[in-house]
């Protein structure tokens, strides 16, 4: 029982990290309909930015903020600068994903080249773990959970109540209709990229706080889990992404607690496979007719 509680607590921490990334991913995915495989690379950029901020003796929280900004800048540059080129040539959704894959490779291995393939430690914001019975969480981990919840609430509220949020939802559902209603879809996409990129950068920083190190492959290893969580939660659903992250986080850590770390990621992915088996329509349901929105 104690093991279960401890693992569950760990699971919630993992879920929070995953949720921040998944929310950023699904925001982008829900609007543009592109599975952006360079998302992991941008997370790594965020992580490295925070690392460099740390080296420059800047406050750790400021470093996190800068990481988010770096993520936003990178995402917008890639989306506006690169993807736009392909959109003009009427590239299809699948090819767009391939393009983002190429982008991811360029960034990842560019970072590897620049960082000389070294692993850099990042041990900021670690505090002594608080203990409550079998559960042990550090203050920063609690902070991350709070952060995830705040982002969830803020995002949901923004989508529901702000004019921009409504414009986003309209564009996501029926872009041509939204355009004819006077919504400037280009601006909506730009802002979505900025916010999503910011969350991506933050997620990268949060991730390396947890793993205490950063190297070129940081985001690349985490990306499949993020995509799985976003797909499981339903395209574009912030709430869904959080719920999916929670389920995956808990399963991953509980399996790790009982069966060993080797099987934990397998368990996390296996959820997607189980859903595929049991309810195949729900994985891609409704996504068939979506068009590219850039």
């Amino acid at each position: 029982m104690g093991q279960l509680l401890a693992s569950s607590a760990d699971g919630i921490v993992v879920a929070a990290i995953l949720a921040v990334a998944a929310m950023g991913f699904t925001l982008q995915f829900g609007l543009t309909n592109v599975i952006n495989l360079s998302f992991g690379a941008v997370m790594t950029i965020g992580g490295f930015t925070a690392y460099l901020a740390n080296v420059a003796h800047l406050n750790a929280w400021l470093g996190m903020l800068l990481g988010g900004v770096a993520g936003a800048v990178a995402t917008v540059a890639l989306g506006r600068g690169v993807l736009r080129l392909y959109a003009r040539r009427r590239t299809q959704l699948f090819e767009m994903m391939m393009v983002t894959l190429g982008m991811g490779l360029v960034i990842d291995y560019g970072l590897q080249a620049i960082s000389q393939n070294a692993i850099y430690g990042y041990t900021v914001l670690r505090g002594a773990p608080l203990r409550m019975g079998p559960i042990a969480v550090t203050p920063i981990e609690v902070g991350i959970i709070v952060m995830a919840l705040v982002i969830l609430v803020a995002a949901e509220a923004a989508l529901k109540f702000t004019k921009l949020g409504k414009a986003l939802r309209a564009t996501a559902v029926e872009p041509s209709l939204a355009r004819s209603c006077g919504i400037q879809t280009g601006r909506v996409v730009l802002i979505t990229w900025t916010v999503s990129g910011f969350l991506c950068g933050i997620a990268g920083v949060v991730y390396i706080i947890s793993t205490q190190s950063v190297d070129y492959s940081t985001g690349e290893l985490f990306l499949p889990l993020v995509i799985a969580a976003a797909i499981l939660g339903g395209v574009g659903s912030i709430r869904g992404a959080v719920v999916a992250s929670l389920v995956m986080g808990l399963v991953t850590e509980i399996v790790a607690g009982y069966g060993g770390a080797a099987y934990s990621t397998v368990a996390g992915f296996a959820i997607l496979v189980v859903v595929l088996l049991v309810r195949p329509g729900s994985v891609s349901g409704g996504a068939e007719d979506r068009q590219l929105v850039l």
Partner: protein
Amino acid sequence: MNAWGFYVATLLIYFGVDLLSGISLNLQFGYAGVVNFGYVVFQAVGAYAAAVVVLGPSGGVASFQQYVFGARLAFPLDLLVAAAAGGLVSLAIGMFSLRRMRRDYQAVVLLIVSLIAIQLVSADVPLFNGANGLTGVGWPLGQLLGISATSSPWIYAAWVLAICAAVFVGVTWLSRSPWGRSLRAMRDNEAAASAMGLNITALRLQVFVLGGAIAGLSGGLLVEYIGAWSPGAWGYAETFVIFTAIFVGGVGNYRGVVIGVLLVPVIFLEIPRFLPAIGYPGLIDSLQWVAIGLAWMLCLLFRPQGILPEKRLRVGRPVGPPETAVAPAEGAI
């Protein structure tokens, strides 16, 4: 045999193995529209199957490597087992992962499934000897002829290329057949193909299993040359290199695939070996991957169909009796 000769022979062997991969992926993606990002798993399975049926019975927990089954099969059973293993695992995975879904989703699902498989294998010691892998794999055909792969690499290379030629001819023939046309119909418009009487689920599974069998075969050929098998050696990155080769060489054109595989995995990835070492060790490797990524992107931007695009099948009007030879009406829709 000098080092240079050995190097070229090895290069040819890798070329052959990569060509088989290219043919398999081109069949699945170029013709049928199935994005098999998990390709490497089937290759690894084939290699493993070939390894265990060549190594002999497992010594169990006490010996230095343990695995399942284990036999000492003669040629050609080793390669047949490798292909069968690739095909069977493809069938198992295909049955639940291949559904009617958007191509990019399909790619992600297959990628994730392959990640699961790789992780599982690395973790499980009794089944697959865990992260250590297997060593000491021989070459049954060579044993028949009294030679080993490492002592006669040119013969092994010729052997691999012969198999490549056979597979090339076979797959090209299949792709031009009515079955191949059904695949392309499925690729171009699945709903219409289905409404036309084609059993899409069966077609997808067939092409997946056939591609998986070829993957298994290529794995078997590889492991019998290298003599060793380890889970860590099979990363999903290699699949992207082959995809790059297909995009560069020509999607849906097997001769284009030959060019692509020659250009990308062989020539391009081998060039750095001859460049003066610049920067720190490993810099060139990183830059190579950056270049692959750029090649991807440039290819998709400027010439997505590749160097040799899919060949258009032209038909002429049949020669027959004049009948009511009327010129086609102008202005017909």
